Structure formats: C-alpha cells, structure tokens
C-alpha cells in the first residue's frame, strides 16, 4: 500500500491552543446550565489579531473563487 509520511511532526504550525475538554465521558447532572464544554471568553475581535487577519482578506477573493458542482 502507498506509504504516507509520519504526520505528527508536520502539523506543528497549526498552533491549536489546547482547551482540554472531555465532558463526553463525564456529563454533569441534567439541568445544570454550566455543564459541558465551556464557551471561550469571546469579547470582540476589534483591534486584535483576528481583526487584522480579517482586514488582510482580499475583498475580491470570493468573486475569483470558482468551483465545479460537487455532491
């Protein structure tokens, strides 16, 4: 079978910040509004890295993006 390279070391750049949540195997009691994965502190993207990332997006990117119909 085709050999694929060991993948693990190649995704370091993904930089996923770990938010360890494993509540699937440890549910809290029914009706507990604070149960389950906790939402992040969202605040606003204004003025932070995310807004800078958004402003870098080419305004015409979607106009240029063409795909064939898939399933």
């Amino acid at each position, binding site marked *: 079978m085709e050999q694929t390279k060991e993948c693990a070391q190649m995704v370091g750049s993904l930089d996923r910040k770990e938010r360890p949540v494993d509540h699937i*195997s440890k549910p809290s009691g029914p009706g507990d509004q604070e149960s389950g994965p906790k939402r992040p502190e969202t605040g606003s*993207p204004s003025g932070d890295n995310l807004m800078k990332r958004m402003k870098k997006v080419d305004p015409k990117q979607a106009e*240029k993006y*063409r795909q064939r119909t898939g399933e």
Partner: protein
Amino acid sequence: MNPIRLFGIETEYGIAREDSETADPVVESMELVRAYLDGHFTRRWDYRGEHPHEDQRGFRVTELAQDKEEDLFAEQDAHRPFSFHEMKSDLVLPNGARFYNDHTHPEYSTPECRSIKDIVAHDRAGERILWIAAQRRNEVLGGRVLQLYKNNTDFHGHSYGCHDNYLVSRTINFESLVRGLLPFLVSRQLIAGAGKVGREAQERGFTPGGFQLSQRADFMETELSVDTMHNRPILNTRDEPHATRQRYRRLHLILGDANMCEYATALKIGTTRVVLDMIAEGFVPSCDLASPVQAIQAISQDPDLKTVVKREKGGTISGLDIQRDYVQQARVVLKDIDEETEWILQEWEQVLRQLEQDPLQLVGKIDWVTKRWLLDSFVQDEGIGWDDPWLASLDLEYHNLDPERGLFFGLEADGRTTSIPQDEDIQKAMNHGPVDTRGGLRGLCVQRFGEDITSIQWEGVHFNGKNEKLHLDLMDHLEPVSVAHCRSVLENAKTPLDVIESMTVEK
C-alpha cells in the same frame, strides 16, 4: 432493541490555485491527493461496492440527474493524459479513511466511528491530512498558492457536500425514517449550520446581502431523491449500505454543512444519532411540516430565529420549537440513556436555551453564530453594508485550512473555540483508525500488509496470496466483539494468509 452506533463523515473540500486562473481543478485535486504519498500511486480502490442508482424506496433508477454532466466530464477527462483511475487517485490511509479526487474536489471520508469523540477527532484529522498534502504540493508549486476550503459553496451557485452517514437496522422501514427525520433535519441547521452571507440558486449565481444559518439550504430542492448533485434532497434515498443489505441500511445525509467548530460536529452527529435511536424505539414526531423544502430555506434565512413554518395539519412552528420537541421526546422515548447520550441531550438542551436567550454564548461552538459575530464586528469596524462583496470573501476565509489565514483557525489559535477531543487524539487519528470499528481494521490492513493488498473498499480487503487471492470480509464486522477479535488476529498475524486462515477457522 440495542441501538447501532456506527457513523462517518465524507467531506468534499474546495480547492483553488491563487497564482493561476487557468489551473485545471481535476489535475489540482489529483496532485493534491498524490502529494500525500511517499511513493507512486497504485490503483487499489475497488468500485464494485458502489451502487448510486439503488433507491431505499425499493427500486433502481435508470439514471441520475447528474449522469449527463458526469458523461460530459468523462468525455473531457478522456482527452487528459491519464486514466479515470489515475484521476481519482483513490487512497486508503493507515487510519482506515478514504482520500481521493471526487468530482474535482478532494474528498476525505473518515473511517467508521462508534463514538462522538472519535468522529470529531477523525474529522479534524482529515483537515490536517489535507493541509499536509497542500503544503507538499505548494513546495512543488513554489509558493503558498494552493488553498483548501472546508465549506460548501463557491458563492456562484456551485455547491459541494459534507455528508454524514449512519448505519441503521433494516428492520426500521424507510417511511418511518423519513417521517421521524424530516422535521429534525429541516431544523438541524440551528445547531449545525456553518453560516453564509447572501443567497444562491443552483448554478444560477449569488445575490449578496443578509446572512443565513446554512451553506446548503439554498441547494435543497426536494424532500426525497436519490440524486446528489442536482435536485438535491433533504433526505437522500441512495440505498448503498456497505453492509449486509438484508440487515442494514446506510442513512446517507447530504443536506449538512461542513463544520469547523468541533462542538457543532459533535452535536450534528450526536443529535442525529439520538433521533435514529428514538425512531428505532418507535418514535413518531408530532410536528409534520407542510413544505419541508420551503421550511428549510425559511429557517435558514432568519438568523434571529423568529420565523415560523407551516405545519401539515394547520398552525405554525419555529425551528427552535421543532428541536425542543425532539429533545424533550428523547427523554421520554429513550430507555437506558448511556453517558454519551446523556452528554448529547444536556448539550442539545443547553444550546437551544442559549440560542433563544443569548446566542453569543455559542461563539466558538456553533459555526453560524461564530461567523455572524465575526462578520458583524467587521461590518461595524469597516462601516460597510451586509451586501458588501468583501463579506463573501471573509465567509470563504473562515473555512480556509491554512492555519495562518483561516479565520476559524485564528480564533482557535487565540483559544476562543471549544475543543472536544484532546489534540493528541487528533494526532493519533491521523495515523490510526478507531479501535472498535471496521474502519480501524481496514487501517490495520494497510499498516501491516499494505504491499500485499490488491483491492480494498468499505466492505473488505483482497490480498495477493502465493497461489490464490485472499479475501478478508469486513461486511459484518460491525459489533465491538467481532471487531476486537479480528483486530487481535490482524495484530498477531505474520502474513495475510495467517489472517485469512485464522478467520476461516473461527467461522
């Protein structure tokens, strides 16, 4: 009745070359898949298990709506300097997943999973595998010019799918599945919609303005159909179980969006699995809809969730109330609620409360809420209108797999998203299948005896023997005990012949 737990996700990715307007998407998708290989591509996928013309309603259609378009593509492909099989470049990976070029879109099909945590890990593993392939391809192309998008539209009226699949007992008749599922599926987008700016019509372009819950709702044209590329149905009727036909169905849902949020993926699969368990217990929903197609589009187009849709027997109901009815009935209908099901029900109830009271609590958990929050902030910051074409570009970029560009990945890097599996689970899923499904067995075959495999598909593996062809039948390895036994045989065998002999003796 013991519920069956086996599901998987197939995702077609968008692919674009930013340095060339004339790049051939067939070639690009093919080269992307092959970039994941160390060596040369060898054809091994066996297409004989595919029956897209078989219909769950008990007949076989003579042609699909897309057949003419497929024939046209085939005609174009005939002029290319490679064969159909080379173009498809179908791979089975060491984790049991299928990775190939489907309809000019790179497609990643997870191995079959039994738990919600596993399916989320494998869905995300697929993103990373595709990004690795893109990095390698970009090395050849000499820059970061190839980009991949885990979304469902090109904003010009062309959609591509993210299908979720569930093994279902054949003892449940198809009419019961349809009746039990349709209202749920029409409103599932409240939880699983990926969000989209503007409106589209199948191959008839894009109208800017506004925001809707779902990427795919605009492309739903009928309630039931065996078609997948045109005349798309809310509930696809393809009858291709990839298991013993007399005992099982595969529910093949094509209406869903590709999710970036792990939490949304978990609840999309989890709530659907719960509804299937309910139907297996004889559940019939009280909320028949007068026009499911109109309803799915009306619900999608109202992100404030106030829209009500007509019921068949008079009156109206909102998407939130449809979902509430299901989750409330789940508590009544389901007996012996296990830990995973309890988690699903708790989160489902909480999401519906938050959608009604404070949707912004779901930023980083539900894609459409997250995307709307990002775009709304941008609209205010830039002082632009919701019909500004820049927003479609930002919508697209939310789904970009490039970790330095993708907006979702920007949120994730800032720690603003909610994770379900640990990162190490995702890393492991890139190279290993689930231990408790035949997906993991398929992956083990590739890991241990890959060079001996002559053909492979969902239902089995053929190996090259000395004097005979050896076949490992995976058709009925669907229960954990059977999977564990076959896994033990595969792990201890020295050759494929050992595997086949051991399994034959056991029979």
